Structure formats: structure tokens, C-alpha cells
């Protein structure tokens, strides 16, 4: 009886072990990376140097070998996405280095599962460096020495990045030339006569606008979107989302929830109004305004239709 019990126990242990090994083998290898901060903006005088810590998280279920590198970028679109070509290089990349004792650019380093490490980014601007902006992305890529010979297919790798906006300047807030252009109501929702935009007063509206930076340094877009009956009577105020506009580029203005300004006029809101955007930041001032006339267009059309149908 005791022998039978031992055999049953041995079978159960064997089956459990087989199941456990089987499950372990089919578990997918994943990767999860985190980076913080995702954006660093620096204004630095030539001849100065600073360090900035950037934290890397390994959120994967296993240890990962990673490689850090720096690549220049340009503005890709009106939404603040960088255009990155990993093959691109620039002589000013020599201003950047890692002050870590064990981690260097383009050299693999290991980060244990669930652990974080700090990349100590050193930025050292030579005294003779030209004034202007430098845009780079710190890329951290999962690294593999080779692909398993048994794999018939693709091995995936992950890269994550943090953007660096560096202004080399002798001033803390280097001057820029920021303009607000293309402040317009939503396409198809207005009738333009002369300089006036006629808008229906019961239709929800979007307004869009662009900030164009014609200067040599990054500009910021802190400010206010407002609709006013006159300058003393604003009837709608929305904070413009503070964003960076790279030198010689443009960016779509918006709020924290959208890349447009949403507004629903009231039933009693009739007559001439102004839609205005004012930007006031440390290094850039810009303002623009359009004149709109709210009128009960839909109601008018309804009345006319009713009269005609009589």
C-alpha cells in the first residue's frame, strides 16, 4: 500500500514538473522599457558644462542588454514629432558623453529585470562653439548578439528615446521670432466675406492655428486663446498648451486635450466677435486675431425653408 502511494506521488510530481517545464518553455520573451525624463530643454552658455540624469527602466520579465546612443533629429511634422535617422551624425555630438563609470555610448550594458539605471549625460559646450540650437535624441536599444538558429522568422528589438533641445546662447532666454499664422475656423463651417468669417451660432466649432518660429532658437507657446465681444469682455478663455517650437519650424497650437481649440457658441451669441491668440513666453511674444460674426444661420435656413414649403 505504501509502495503504491509512493508511485502515485512520484507520478504526480513528474506530471507537475513536466507541466511546469512546458509552460515555462512557451512563455513569450517580452520587453518593456521606460525612460524619464522624455524631454530635456537646456539653455547653456559656450564654455559651460552640465550633467543631466536620465533614468532607464527595464520593465521586462528578464534581464536585458541595452545600448545607448545619441542621434541628431529635425522636426518631422506640426505635432512635435522628431524625424530620426539612426544613421545620421553631426560633429557637435562630441559635446555629449556619458559620465557613468560602466556605461558608455554605443557599448552594451546589462539591466536586470524590474531594475532601473541612470544614464548621466554630460553636456560640455566648447567656448568657441557657435551659438544656436542642437537637437538630439538619446536612444536606448535592446541588444542581441545573434538570433536563435531555431527561429524561422523575425527577432524583434525595441528602441526608446528621450529628446534633448539644447540652446547654446549667451542669454538665458535667447530671442526668437515667433508668428501665429493660419488661425482659422474649421474647414467648411464658415462663410468668408472680406475679412469677416460668418459662423453659425449654434454649431460647435473648432479653431486651428500654427506657431511659426523664424528665429534661430527654440520658442515656447505659453499663452491664451480667447473669444471676445470686445477687448474688455472675453467670453471664452482657453490656455494654449505650452509647447516647444524648434528654430525654423512650425507647430500646431492647441489645448492639453486636442490640437485644436473647441468652442460652442451660445444661442444668444450674435454679432461681431474677435478670436484671438496671444503668446507671451520668456523669449517670444506673438499675437493674432480674426474677426468673426456669429449669426443664426441654421435657424434662418429653417425659417426660409418653412416659408417656402407653405
Amino acid at each position, binding site marked *: 500500500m505504501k509502495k503504491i502511494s509512493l508511485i502515485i506521488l512520484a507520478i504526480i510530481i513528474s506530471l507537475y514538473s513536466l507541466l511546469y517545464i512546458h509552460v515555462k518553455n512557451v512563455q513569450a520573451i517580452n520587453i518593456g522599457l521606460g525612460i524619464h525624463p*522624455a524631454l530635456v530643454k537646456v539653455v547653456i552658455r559656450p564654455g559651460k558644462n552640465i550633467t543631466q540624469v536620465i533614468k532607464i527602466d527595464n520593465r521586462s520579465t528578464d534581464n536585458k542588454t541595452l545600448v545607448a546612443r545619441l542621434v541628431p533629429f529635425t522636426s518631422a511634422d506640426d505635432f*512635435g514629432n522628431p524625424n530620426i535617422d539612426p544613421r545620421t551624425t553631426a560633429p557637435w555630438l562630441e559635446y555629449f558623453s556619458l559620465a557613468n563609470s560602466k556605461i558608455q555610448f554605443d557599448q552594451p550594458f546589462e539591466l536586470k529585470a524590474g531594475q532601473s539605471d541612470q544614464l548621466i549625460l554630460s553636456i560640455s559646450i566648447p567656448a568657441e562653439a557657435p551659438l544656436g540650437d542642437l537637437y538630439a535624441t538619446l536612444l536606448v536599444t535592446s541588444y542581441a548578439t545573434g538570433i536563435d538558429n531555431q527561429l524561422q522568422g523575425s527577432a524583434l528589438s525595441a528602441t526608446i*528615446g528621450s529628446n534633448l533641445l539644447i540652446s547654446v546662447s549667451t542669454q538665458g532666454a535667447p530671442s526668437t521670432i515667433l508668428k501665429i499664422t493660419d488661425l482659422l475656423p474649421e474647414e467648411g463651417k464658415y462663410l468668408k466675406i472680406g475679412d469677416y468669417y460668418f459662423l453659425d451660432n449654434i454649431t460647435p466649432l473648432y479653431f486651428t492655428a500654427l506657431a511659426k518660429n523664424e528665429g534661430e532658437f527654440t520658442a515656447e507657446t505659453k499663452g491664451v486663446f480667447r473669444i471676445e465681444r470686445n477687448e474688455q469682455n472675453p467670453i*471664452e*478663455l482657453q490656455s494654449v498648451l505650452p509647447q*516647444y517650437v524648434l528654430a525654423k519650424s512650425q507647430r500646431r497650437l492647441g489645448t492639453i486635450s486636442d490640437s485644436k481649440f473647441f468652442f460652442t457658441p451660445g444661442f444668444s451669441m*450674435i454679432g461681431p466677435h474677435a478670436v484671438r491668440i496671444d503668446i507671451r513666453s520668456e523669449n517670444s511674444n506673438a499675437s493674432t486675431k480674426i474677426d468673426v460674426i456669429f449669426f443664426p444661420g441654421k435657424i434662418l435656413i429653417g425659417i426660409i425653408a418653412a416659408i417656402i414649403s407653405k
Partner: protein
Amino acid sequence: MKLQYLILFPILVFIFTIFAPNTSDADFLFSPSFNINFSTVNIGGGQLSSPSFGLGVTIGQTAQGQFGETGFIVKAGFQYIHPLDSFTFTISNLDINFGSLVPGTPSTGTTILSVTTGSAFGYAVKTIADHPLRIINGVTTIPNTTCDLATPCTITDAAVWADNARYGFGYNMAGDDVDTADFVNSTYFRPFPMQGVDTPAIVMSRPGVATDSSATSTYKVNVSGAQAAGTYQNNIQYIAIPAF
């Protein structure tokens, strides 16, 4: 009579529109996103709030003294959201194993890409492959798909690939922050851009904050009977970059 009405109403509305009295002053300011409590309605300091975020507005001259003393100013992260969280990117499965390939019968594999921007403005995930699927220790490749003959696709334009007599390797995207005007449904595929030849192609993007945006990438390979036997491999890189 009707003609008189037709002329009279637009004239009255026009007069009413132009000469309407001023609307009442705005002492109750709001938007879909924020309640705004400015002490004045001019540009200046204030505290903005919404159910999701607190926003400290700082407008004016700052940090000049700091720059004068130290020669630098650092702003890490985004001014408008507290606290500042990490930008994270996850791939659920790093090995896309098609197993044995059967000529004329497509094989597929999937993985899930997930992004949380934390306090970033938005993001884009791009992809690029080191080379086409290539036989180990050889030069023979499985070509990148060009999709169906009637609906050719490119590295930036997905198109229908449903014909099993069309051979190659490509991918489909579905889920959050995927361009559904391009990847219309699960039959739409693109070939991967090639490192050294092409620039990475966007597979996910969003202009605003993303919290655990997830999309499924489906890989499809279909070989002809003339394809040399062997194990074919490549490396596909996904690059997740926050907006600035």
C-alpha cells in the same frame, strides 16, 4: 407675400446680427478641458484645473538670474503636467516564429506594441528591418511583399494582400493609434522598410497623451514552391519616440 418674407427675414437677421447689443461680461469662464480662475482676464499667472490634471501657468521673465550665475538653465520634462511619469514602450513577444513554411499557404505571427507617454505630448512608433527574411549563412531571401497585383503596397502605403499566389513578407497593424485610413482591415499589408535603404516607417502615432495605447502587429509570410529550403530570419526594430 412669400417673396416679401424671403426678402424681409434676411434683412432683419443681418441688422440684428450687426447691431446686436453686447453680450454679458464673462465672469464665469470655462472650457471643455478646464475651469479657469484668473484674477484678471489678461495674460498672467493662474491656477488651471481639470478632473485629470492640475496646471500651473507661469508667464513672464524667469531664470535670468540663474543663467547669469551658472551659465545654464535646465528644464527636464514637461511644464504642464505633474507628476512626471516615464515614457514606456512594451513589445509582448520578441520572437515571431512562423515554424515550417508551406508553399502557397501563408503563415502568420503576432505581437502587441504598447505605449504610455506619461507626461509627453504625443509619440510615434516607427519600424525598420535589417534585411528581408534571409536564409541562415546564405544570401537567399524571401522578398518583401508588394501585395496583390491589383493593389500594390509600399513601405508607407498598405494595400490588400489576399492572393495566396503572391509571395513575400509583410505586416498589418490594428488597434490604438494606428492609421486606419491606411491599414483599413486585416487584409491590408505593408512591406518593412530596409535599414540602409529606407527611413523607418510610422506604425503607431498620437498627437496627445497616451495611456497604455496598444496595437497588434500581424506578420505574414507566403513562399512559392521554388523557395529554397532552410531557415529564414531577420531583425525588426521598433523605435518609440516621444514628441518634444
